């Protein structure tokens, strides 16, 4: 007997979660299975729609205006501008993210000192927007080498931000070891008043009137709003987190928000075991989830593949070729593997666009351009036709195609 649902979503990243949340909100009996914990905790927590065109033009002011100009095989062309907007509406409804009031990209400082165009950002990052002309003090922590505040400040200044920015490094209160985890800082700020007070004191001692204070993204986990608000009232200044690389608390908070939205919408989910195979011909009858060597059948009427790209292992490769490991979906790529990449590290790498191809309802197509199965759709990084790293479009494509796949699958039920 298989574990049965109406819609089965394979993958627990932004695309899989958006698919599952969208369908669950429509009353669909949906189940999300993810091999490991969501990779959202590797994400900065910023949600981009489109920062640059495939030709490198940008930063773009209005990502939505640029969508109709994208190449035909870009996933945004499949979804369409209205589809992208509806998808972002769902995202805005289930999270507390900012930026939905305008089509225009916000510019946010990163922990590398660049300014990044992004469509949505968490409330904790809001006071950092580069369009605000209040002066900024960036405060780094001695033991956190990932965020070097003076260096970041110098970079931001060189980037021409319209405010004065300086950076200092302080010691975090308490005697934390050099490699203390982000969760440790967060826990102390959340639960230990002495740490909070000491932190405020040390920031204050280094401040010379700046109205905005930027800190590494460690200001609490479950209770992050309270931590930030407390710091703001103690300092009498706006406080923001500078989004960081992995492991990232803003990413983790986004993951929590989306799983919680899925839970309240009545969706089911489980993590820890991979989908490894399927049974079926024109239609997928069921997939097989491997649990310590045993393959357990999970059946559904509709399926959405949201397993990610080359990094997420939704697309894999070996010396023979590039492939999709679960359904063996067709992945168009050059036969000679020396044509998969460009010699220049920051060049235009063909592999970055490798992924599965779909019809306009996101059904996966075979090598002849026909639907491989009646009931398999794809969303997010597993799709081909876009280079998320260069375009800064990863989150937006995941949200838009997740929404579109969920809507199309729901119509089939």
């Amino acid at each position, binding site marked *: *007997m298989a*574990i049965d649902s109406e819609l089965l979503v394979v993958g627990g990243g932004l695309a899989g979660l958006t698919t599952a949340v969208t369908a669950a909100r429509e009353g669909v009996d949906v189940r999300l*299975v993810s091999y*490991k*914990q969501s*990779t959202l*905790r*590797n994400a900065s927590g910023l949600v981009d729609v489109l920062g640059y065109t495939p030709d490198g033009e940008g930063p773009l002011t209005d990502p939505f205006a640029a969508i109709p100009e994208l190449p035909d095989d870009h996933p945004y062309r499949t979804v369409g501008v209205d589809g992208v907007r509806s998808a972002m509406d769902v995202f805005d409804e289930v999270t507390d993210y900012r930026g939905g009031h305008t089509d225009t990209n916000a510019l946010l400082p990163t922990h590398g000192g660049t300014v990044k165009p992004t469509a949505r950002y968490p409330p904790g990052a809001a006071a950092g927007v580069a369009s605000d002309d209040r002066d900024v003090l960036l405060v780094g922590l001695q033991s956190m080498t990932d965020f070097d505040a003076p260096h970041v400040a110098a970079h931001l200044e060189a980037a021409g931000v319209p405010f004065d920015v300086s950076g200092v490094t302080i010691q975090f209160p*308490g*005697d*934390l*070891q050099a*490699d*203390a*985890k*982000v*969760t*440790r800082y967060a*826990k102390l700020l959340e639960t230990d008043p002495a740490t909070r007070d000491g932190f405020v004191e040390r920031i204050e001692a280094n401040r010379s009137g700046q109205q905005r204070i930027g800190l590494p993204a460690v200001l609490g986990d*479950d209770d992050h709003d309270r931590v930030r608000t407390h710091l703001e009232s103690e300092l009498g200044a706006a406080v923001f987190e500078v989004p960081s690389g*992995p*492991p990232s*608390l803003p990413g*983790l908070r986004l993951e929590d928000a989306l799983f919680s939205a899925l*839970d309240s919408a009545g969706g*089911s*989910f*489980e*993590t*820890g*075991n991979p989908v490894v195979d399927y049974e079926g011909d024109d239609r997928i009858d069921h997939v097989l*989830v491997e*649990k*310590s*060597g*045993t393959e*357990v059948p999970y059946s559904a009427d509709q399926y959405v593949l949201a397993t990610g790209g080359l990094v*997420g*292992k939704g697309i894999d490769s070996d010396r023979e070729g590039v492939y999709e490991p679960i359904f063996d979906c067709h992945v168009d790529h050059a036969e000679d593997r*020396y044509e998969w990449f460009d*010699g220049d590290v920051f060049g235009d790498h063909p592999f970055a666009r490798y992924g599965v191809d779909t019809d306009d309802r996101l059904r996966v197509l075979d090598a002849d351009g026909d639907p491989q199965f009646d009931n398999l759709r794809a969303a997010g990084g597993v799709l081909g036709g876009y280079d998320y790293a260069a375009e800064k479009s990863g989150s937006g494509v995941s949200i838009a195609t997740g929404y579109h796949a969920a809507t199309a699958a729901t119509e089939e039920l």
Partner: protein
Amino acid sequence: MSDAEDPTTFSPAEPTTGEEFEPVEVFPDNDDFDLRPGADNCYKCSTCDTNCPVAEVDDDFPGPKFQGPEQWRLTQTDDDYEIDDSITSCSNCLRCDNACPSGVPLSQMHNTARGRYVDEQMSKLSVEYIRNRILANYRTSAWLASKVPRLSTFVMNNSAVRWVMDKTMGIPKERDFPAFATETFQEWWAKRGGADESRRRARQNRPDDADPSDYKVAYFHGCYSNYNTTQVGKAMVRVYEELGFEVVVPEQKCSGTPMFANGMLDDAERHAKVNVSSMSDLVEQGYDAIASCTSCSMALRQEYPELFDIDGIEKVSENTYDSVEYLRIHTDIADRLSEATVEGDLAEEFAYHAPCHGRNQGLERQAVELFAELDGVGIEDVGDSCSGISGTYGWKSEKYEISMEIGQPMFDHMEDSAGETGMTECPTCAMQMEHGTGYDVRHPLELIEAAIVEA
């Protein structure tokens, strides 16, 4: 000079034809499990570190990334390398395993390092070693206690005795010792008529056209259901029989979980050999192995094949299931429960905590899903924090405070939830839940029994 080719002649853009390639055996004499591919897979994203409940509260604990791949590499480059003693602060919750996006076998590395630390660096005469050995061999103490259960329960919770145990052994006086059952599960099972009686009952409940060979399970009850919470073992038997399954209860020892966590791999292997031997015979005969404790099923499924080389171990691993998981896969339990109503004792609102070892098997939502449609009860997931006790971990005086600090978010969420009865699959999580909130804690099997088995 290394075995690698001269780097000056290497061009990354030139195809490697393979014609001159001769693979080099790196560790020709090593017959341990090779952890190198696992260590090489680590790309240092540190996601494991953000999942570590200990690193979040303990300033001296360097986290799973160090304990796993980094420390493993150090052991490879320096023969005299000593395992860092922080390895004893890992609680073996296995959360890092489920977190790793790159498939690094973190817990296998931790178990290996801890085993080596205890073998080579820990004094066998130290109080800590002796205490840990006693804790790890709970089965032996419980067996002894079960001979005089009432006296044992009384003595073990006597405050003078506990003060002495805390001072001399490092067993925290704050904790309540679990009560020992006056009749063990095994005694109840034998008195009831054992496998013959189970076959008779199962046959009555099976549809006429059912193939009896699909309805055979071997129950791994573990120590706790045998000596302490026997009601869980009894519920397992009654529920399975109600659904037509005949149950056998083979010879078994401790699953080894507390031994892994204390680095006592020889003890664990001795017990594993008995378990694998009796379970593999039954698996050959078409039985599936069922555990009601998620740490026991975790041990049989994952830790055994990762750590030991015993005949039949893979077969046992592949055919082991959690008791509730198995019902979801092989029966119409979801439909049965959605049509049932619970009355009486268990008609409660439950605050459910998913144990880490269940989470690691993908079972974190099974109880919440199954009971959502069950009339007469409510169930609420109290979130993804670790209970903090991790088996024997919270039973050490020097870890007690850390254990309670880890558990605090769970206690808070339990207090915030509608119910005042807890639920979990793990017996030591249950102990911690009771300790932190005073709630009664039940196993999902008990609720399934109340829903579908006529009293």
